[in-house]
């Protein structure tokens, strides 16, 4: 009796802190759309080439709807059927459902608005660098720099009191863990909803001049929608940039030639930020889409209902798109990288993230030109256990 060969699971084993699992690159060369087994028994696809991933992300036949998703990794929720996205949780919606919510926010994150925010972001950064220095001669860069900067900024933009960060940072971290227990996940979600629910009630009673206050004042959204939109913006606004600041600094400190180029020419910072986004690809387990109908992709038949995991790492390291793609080069153009995604779901806060990273990396190395790791690179704890990659801690001295 012959047995059908079983599909492999998502490759996750890294051999060093910065490169994707080597299997991702091998698949991109030999089989850029390959079968993928999900923990719930679903068999879908893993896509690893830049051209295919970009095409899929821009193609409305591939859905973001939550109820069509399967998780590619073991996780408390991985074996349970997913309900449709809660009202306001628009990243897991398609079409008009998605754009209805997104449109309420897009005016808040324009290039010009983010530019106008620069002096305020710089104040936050300077305050964090003062605190870092005071904690020295050595300190954890994540605790004093990478995590507080985006947390302070998103709190101010949304209108969330930073003093109450204890109520969202820990819960948010727990939600990003792949090994959290199911009960813990539900408790964290409930605690976040409670926290944001109190804020929404307060802002409805007494309007405030911030994003959440503005959404409350429209009168168009239910409390549930307001809470979920706040939830989304709060988590997306601090987890991602925090990890780019921490991991990006780790990358620069372990690539002295690139760091020397970066320090010698302040004009490199815009491009260096894009290159760090490309090279590090912190959305380490990719984006997921589900086929709404049968689709032919380069001769491969994708059936309706099948899930595709789109490897951002694979795309960003694709030599067909980026020459010498595996090398970090802060002076290259990394234009076109997919770290913020592509298509109508592309990151809403990307211009804010760019401002935080440009000012963050520049200010850090201007203030501490002798910054160095306080432990061997192999001892820096990396976030292979989290949805978003990065470092748990970055011990530095100066």
């Amino acid at each position, binding site marked *: 009796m012959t047995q059908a060969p079983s599909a492999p699971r998502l490759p996750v084993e890294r051999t060093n802190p910065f490169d994707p699992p080597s299997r991702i690159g091998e698949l991109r060369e030999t089989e850029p759309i390959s079968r993928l087994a999900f923990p719930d028994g679903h068999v879908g696809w893993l896509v690893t080439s830049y051209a295919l991933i970009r095409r899929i992300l821009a193609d409305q036949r591939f859905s973001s709807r939550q109820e069509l998703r399967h998780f590619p990794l073991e996780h408390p929720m991985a074996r349970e059927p997913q309900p449709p996205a809660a009202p306001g949780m628009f990243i897991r919606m398609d079409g008009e459902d998605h754009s209805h919510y997104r449109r309420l926010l897009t*005016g808040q994150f*324009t290039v010009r608005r983010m530019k106008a925010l620069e002096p305020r972001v710089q104040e936050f950064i300077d305050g964090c660098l003062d605190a870092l220095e005071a904690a020295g001669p050595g300190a954890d860069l994540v605790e004093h720099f990478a995590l507080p900067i985006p947390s302070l900024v998103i709190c101010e933009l949304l209108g969330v009191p930073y003093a109450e960060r204890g109520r969202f940072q820990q819960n948010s971290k727990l939600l990003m863990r792949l090994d959290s227990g199911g009960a813990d996940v539900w408790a964290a979600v409930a605690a976040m909803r409670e926290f944001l629910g109190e804020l929404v009630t307060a802002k409805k009673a007494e309007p405030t001049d911030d994003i959440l206050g503005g959404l409350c004042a429209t009168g168009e959204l239910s409390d549930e929608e307001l809470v979920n939109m706040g939830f989304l913006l709060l988590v997306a606004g601090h987890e991602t940039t925090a990890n780019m600041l921490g991991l990006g600094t780790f990358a620069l400190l372990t690539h002295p030639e690139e760091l020397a180029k970066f320090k010698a020419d302040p004009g490199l910072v815009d491009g260096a930020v894009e290159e760090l986004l490309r090279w590090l690809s912190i959305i380490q387990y990719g984006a997921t889409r589900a086929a709404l109908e049968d689709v032919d992709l380069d001769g491969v038949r994708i059936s309706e209902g099948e899930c595709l995991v789109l490897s951002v790492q694979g795309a960003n390291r694709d030599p067909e798109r980026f020459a010498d793609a595996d090398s970090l080069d802060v002076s290259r153009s990394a234009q076109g990288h997919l770290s913020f995604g592509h*298509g109508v779901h592309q990151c*809403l806060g990307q211009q804010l993230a760019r401002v935080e990273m440009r000012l963050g990396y520049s200010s850090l190395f201007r203030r501490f030109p002798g910054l160095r790791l306080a432990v061997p690179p192999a001892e820096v704890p990396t976030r292979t256990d989290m949805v978003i990659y990065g470092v748990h801690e970055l011990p530095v001295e100066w």
Partner: protein
Amino acid sequence: MEVEVDPRRCCASGMCALTAPAVFDQDEAAGTVVLLSARPPSETWDSVWEAADSCPAGAISVKD
């Protein structure tokens, strides 16, 4: 070069305003694309091609 934009397709990522600010802006309220120059000067062409290529929603079309 002739440039056209479709604000209805636009998802307001801001990539065009970031890449070619002399040619593209964003609507203050909606964040969607505003075309500043339908026949931009040649020194901006490279950035216009890059903006069109970067647009996540395919809202920019360029003709030579």
